[in-house]
């Protein structure tokens, strides 16, 4: 027996929803664990348990449709992001070989030193625009050094990374305008050779792995594509969110300052409170019952990480930002076989930034933040820090 899920006329990718999706998330979550959005012809998953269950269950929820337009799903076919086991298992291993916490252990000190000197410089200046000066500058430097980018590629990372996420949206104006830019990234990655990357970099290591047969032939470029496509825009969003949330919650910054062992918990809470990824796709491979409603076989599904992260059935007082909560099971990195492959690097970067802020900043006085609607990544575009009260 099939029972149709509740429906809604919300447009998941309308400007006002992208700017502040949380009221819409709450409304949809109230309606049901799964809701059919007629305007998008998408079944959204809204509650914590439904989302975690779906991303663990790759047999029912295929990753062959992570994007919301057929063109991008076709372009991603054959990457670990967009494949299912058993093919996925091998691709994922190739991707994480040089990206897992194990592989990145040696970089911790370097990343911490970079974050500290950048934050020290900004505190010294006293006022700055935090998105360009920190949220973008820091991950761009880390990822560029990691992959070993030099020259033109380095200058293009920001726009390439943004476009790679934007094109996962439905075929709206944002997507069509971003396709040519995402295409530049794709062609650069298909032509890049070991010699183009700095010696001793992880990017060079990926080519070495290809040369010695540890990963399949012709996969090095794809892996670098995924580092850039998935890792740049999301990390920038998370670091911007760190500055904004600690600026607007000085009491929570004070708690981390008093007890720096709270840094990992604080980052979990930042990710829970504002998910960097708005919606992520799956395809139902069969009729699936979720809390009494049927997701029909073949349906395009959208996972709303941010809605699950504020589910009051899972988190007490979910709309409060509390660094001591330590929600280590938040959904922002996904979970299971497709759980964010770069989360180890993201943690290294974010922990380093939070530690540096907690060490050097007493309080931040923020001006109004500016947001620009974006299909998949939800981030702050401009965040003026008007004054730093030093530690």
């Amino acid at each position: 027996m099939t029972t149709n899920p509740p429906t809604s006329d919300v447009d998941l990718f309308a400007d006002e929803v992208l700017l502040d999706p949380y009221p819409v998330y709450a409304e949809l979550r109230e309606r049901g664990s799964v809701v059919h959005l007629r305007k998008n012809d998408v079944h959204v998953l809204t509650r914590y348990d439904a989302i975690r269950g779906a991303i663990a269950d790759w047999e029912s929820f295929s990753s062959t449709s992570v994007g919301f337009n057929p063109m991008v799903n076709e372009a991603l076919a054959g990457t670990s992001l967009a494949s299912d086991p058993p093919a996925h298992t091998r691709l994922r291993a190739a991707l994480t070989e040089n990206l897992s916490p194990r592989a990145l252990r040696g970089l911790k000190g370097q990343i911490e030193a970079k974050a500290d000197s950048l934050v020290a410089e900004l505190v010294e200046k006293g006022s700055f625009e935090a998105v360009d000066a920190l949220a973008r500058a820091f991950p761009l430097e880390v990822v560029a050094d990691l992959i070993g980018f030099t020259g033109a590629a380095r200058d293009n990372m920001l726009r390439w990374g943004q476009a790679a996420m934007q094109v996962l949206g439905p075929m709206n104006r944002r997507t069509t305008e971003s396709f040519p830019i995402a295409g530049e990234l794709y062609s650069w990655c298909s032509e890049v050779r070991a010699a183009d990357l700095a010696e001793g970099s992880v990017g060079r290591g990926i080519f070495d792995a290809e040369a010695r047969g540890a990963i399949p032939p012709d996969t090095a470029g794809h892996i670098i594509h995924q580092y850039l496509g998935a890792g740049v825009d999301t990390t920038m969003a998370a670091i911007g969110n760190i500055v904004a949330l600690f600026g607007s919650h000085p009491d929570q910054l004070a708690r981390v300052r008093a007890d720096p062992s709270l840094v990992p918990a604080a980052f979990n809470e930042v990710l829970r409170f504002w998910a960097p990824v708005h919606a992520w796709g799956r395809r139902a491979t069969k009729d699936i019952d979720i809390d009494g409603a049927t997701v029909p076989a073949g349906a395009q599904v959208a996972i709303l990480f941010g809605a699950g992260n504020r589910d009051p059935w899972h988190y007490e007082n979910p709309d409060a930002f509390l660094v001591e909560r330590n929600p280590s099971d938040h959904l922002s990195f996904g979970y299971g076989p497709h759980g964010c492959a770069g989360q180890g690097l993201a943690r290294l970067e974010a922990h380093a930034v939070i530690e540096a802020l907690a060490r050097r900043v007493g309080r931040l006085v923020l001006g109004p933040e500016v947001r620009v609607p974006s299909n998949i990544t939800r981030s702050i575009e401009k965040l003026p820090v008007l004054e730093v009260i030093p530690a």
Partner: protein
Amino acid sequence: MKIILDRPRCEGHGLCEEAAPHLMHLDDEGELVLDVEQFGEADAGPANAAVRVCPVAALRVA
């Protein structure tokens, strides 16, 4: 009860070690070592917490 590790899936994120430091740890190479596999009622809480926080679902309890 027993903790079961799907080793090819483990990427060494280490969140399980934080949840259950007396049951498992990452060695110097960043590989997960299960110090206790068979566990009793007293360790059920931390063991289940370790399973729950593994970001890539590499652990289970049977």
